[in-house]
């Protein structure tokens, strides 16, 4: 066989193989854009190989002839050959096609990319809500993990450990320094879903002692909360914090959040309002929908259980 065909076949096979390798079969099969892109890639390979082989064959077997023009430039002559037919026809056809496309096929304002987008989103949302709108339990946690890995891991890390203190460690409800910071500075992140601040130390009375909370008490209660509501600060908590956060620290609806453990409601609130405290600032996440927030809440809750 002629070497050039062999090269053509090798090249085609290799490029088609590479294209096959790059295709995301797991997620991409039903996406029309993916299909068209691949079709384009394949067409590119096939047309190029076919055409190049055609001309190489002409170099190998044909001979140059025709009538030469009278003039020469620095010794370069020009044949007066006719246009290659295939080329001329294709040129003509693409121009006709172009005019058709622009005037009849898709006249100036017939297409709107935003219109197309809106339809896409509607279809996507409909499919999504129908199939997964009501999942619960482990499936919900699984979904939450998928949101977490796409959206949250850049700050909280793959294992939600907070990357050396750069963001909150979500495997644990809260750390000493965060509790302490909250007591010292108060907190006003809208975590209860509304403006409902927690007062700073100057507003925090210890009911047991009847006085403003002291530094030693702050240290104790911080350790108590961070250790999962165990240890020495129990009495301070009962005297100062329980009125809002509840005896067990599990929070009270409309009053104060759960400081004993994560709950989906707490996470949802944080995602709605963001949180700025000891470690840094956590942004709010408007672009997640309610189900996604619920799911990631379930996932985070599952981490520290």
């Amino acid at each position, binding site marked *: 066989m002629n070497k050039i065909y062999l090269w053509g076949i090798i090249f085609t096979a*290799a*490029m088609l193989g*590479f*294209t096959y*390798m*790059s295709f995301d079969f*797991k*997620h*991409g099969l039903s*996406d*029309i*854009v*993916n299909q*068209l*892109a691949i079709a*384009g*890639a394949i067409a*590119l390979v096939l047309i*190029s190989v076919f*055409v190049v082989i055609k*001309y190489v064959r*002409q*170099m*190998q077997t044909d*001979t*140059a002839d*025709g009538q*030469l023009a009278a*003039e020469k*430039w620095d*010794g*370069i*002559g*020009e*044949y*007066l050959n006719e*246009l*290659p037919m295939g*080329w*001329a026809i*294709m*040129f003509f056809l*693409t*121009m006709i*096609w*172009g005019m058709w*496309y*622009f005037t009849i096929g*898709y006249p100036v*304002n017939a*297409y*709107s990319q935003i219109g197309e987008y809106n339809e896409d989103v509607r279809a996507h949302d409909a499919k*999504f809500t129908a199939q*997964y709108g009501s999942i619960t339990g482990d499936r919900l946690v699984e*979904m939450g993990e*998928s949101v977490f*890995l796409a*959206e949250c891991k*850049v700050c909280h890390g793959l294992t939600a450990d907070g990357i050396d203190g750069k963001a909150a460690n979500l495997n644990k409800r809260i750390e000493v320094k965060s509790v302490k910071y909250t007591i010292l500075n108060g907190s006003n992140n809208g975590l209860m879903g509304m403006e409902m601040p927690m007062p700073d130390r100057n507003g925090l009375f210890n009911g047991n002692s009847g006085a403003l909370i002291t530094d030693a008490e702050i240290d104790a209660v911080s350790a108590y909360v961070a250790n999962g509501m165990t240890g020495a600060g129990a009495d301070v908590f009962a005297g100062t914090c329980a009125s809002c956060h509840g005896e067990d620290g599990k929070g009270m609806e409309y009053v104060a959040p759960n400081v004993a453990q994560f709950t989906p409601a707490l996470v949802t609130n944080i995602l709605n309002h963001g949180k700025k405290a000891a470690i840094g600032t956590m942004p709010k996440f408007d672009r997640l929908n309610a189900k*996604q927030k619920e799911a990631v809440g379930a996932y985070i809750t599952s981490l520290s259980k």
Partner: protein
Amino acid sequence: MENRPLEYDYTVTKMFMFMTIVLGIVGMLIGVILAFQLAYPGVNTILGEGLAEYTNFSRLRPLHTDSVAFGFTLSGIFAAWFYIGQRVLKVSMAESKFLMFIGKLMFWLYAVGVVAIVVSLFMGITTSKEYAEFEWPIDIAIVIIWVLFGISIFGLIGIRREKSLYISVWYFIAGFLGVAMLYLFNNMEVPTYFASGGVGSIMHSVSMYSGTNDALVQWWYGHNAVAFVFTVPIVAMIYYFLPKESGQAIYSYKLSLLSFWGLMFVYLWAGGHHLIYSTVPDWVQTMGSIFSVILILPSWGSAINMLLTMKGEWQQVASSPLIKFMVLGSTFYMFSTLEGPIQAIKSVNAIAHFTDWIVGHVHDGTLGWVGFMIMAALYHMAPRVFKRELYSKSLMATQFWIQTLGVVLYFTSMWIAGITQGMMWRAHDEFGNLAYSFIDTVTVLHPYYTIRAVGGLLYLVGFIMFAYNIYKTMSARPVEEYELQNASPMGA
């Protein structure tokens, strides 16, 4: 006297040949560094933490694009003009003191411009617009250089003996006019120092256009800068060097004619393909796509004309590495001018835009077509301007295969990387959430970035072999006594 061939004066050609090689090495070396930085980010601090400001990817990238496009490529084009121009117009630079002076002045201003650009880009003085990064004082210098180039072209044409213009000259004229028009309009900017009555940096300027308009003008420019730097003048070169080197006549005048005017007409309309799914009006995007597809034909016209010029001459292709460069060059030209239009189709662009598939496309054109053609041109010119035999044919052949392998590694790896990443960005998982965070789509590319870097390195190695071959040609071989007709003489 009358019957002796004209004594052409190649002083300016030689100067620009030298510049082509130097800037080629610099530009491609930076390209290789960039490629390794993406594969191994540690390379960002290759000269230490202290110099990282000047050696990191983002500071170097514009240096790469500008030094290969406006350094390597333009110098090659200038060298070729000052060679081809004299010969096809049948007039020697030696005949006009004025043109000689303009040519030299242009070179020296250009050299100063290169230094200014390198320094300013290293310092981070840039307007950020791709291929138009230079701040206003450099813009002014560039305009002056361009005017001198115009004088060189039209001056030589003015005193020509050959009444009608050869095809290459058409393309040089078009290249000159195109860049002039594009550059002026895209660089409309207001220097803030003067407008504010002397506050802040004197180098800084602000674009006359804002947002979407700025994007439209920029890509009207950017696309056509590709046309009038990477395409039109390179076509001018192949129309001269291929028939000249092979001794064959151009296959068809008619095809030359239709391809030329077709290209001129169609190219300018296609710029919208850089702005698909952006905020420019839908019809501008559609127009860009349509004209891109039509553009295949006038582009292929020239390439086909070249391949058919070699009809029946396979033995030349097989035996001469110099002709191989040009034949493979036109093949890559065909490949990238089919690839571009396919990437310009809306749905394909939805995947390809912003990914490495575009970078692959860029380098099919620049490495396989522009680079190969410029090296071929210099190889053809060297024995004639230095009056020596080319130093080594086998070195040239080795170089050809090394670089071809380099290009193949480059574009296959970017092909895979681009399509993979494009699809991962779009993917949703079974729950309707994004399937991948951005970083997942970055780490997956590591092997391809490595392969690309190796491919680029091979290309650079080939280029250094080329530089060496030319250097040895200049300095070592015996003198040629006679004007060479076609095929270049080569040592073993």
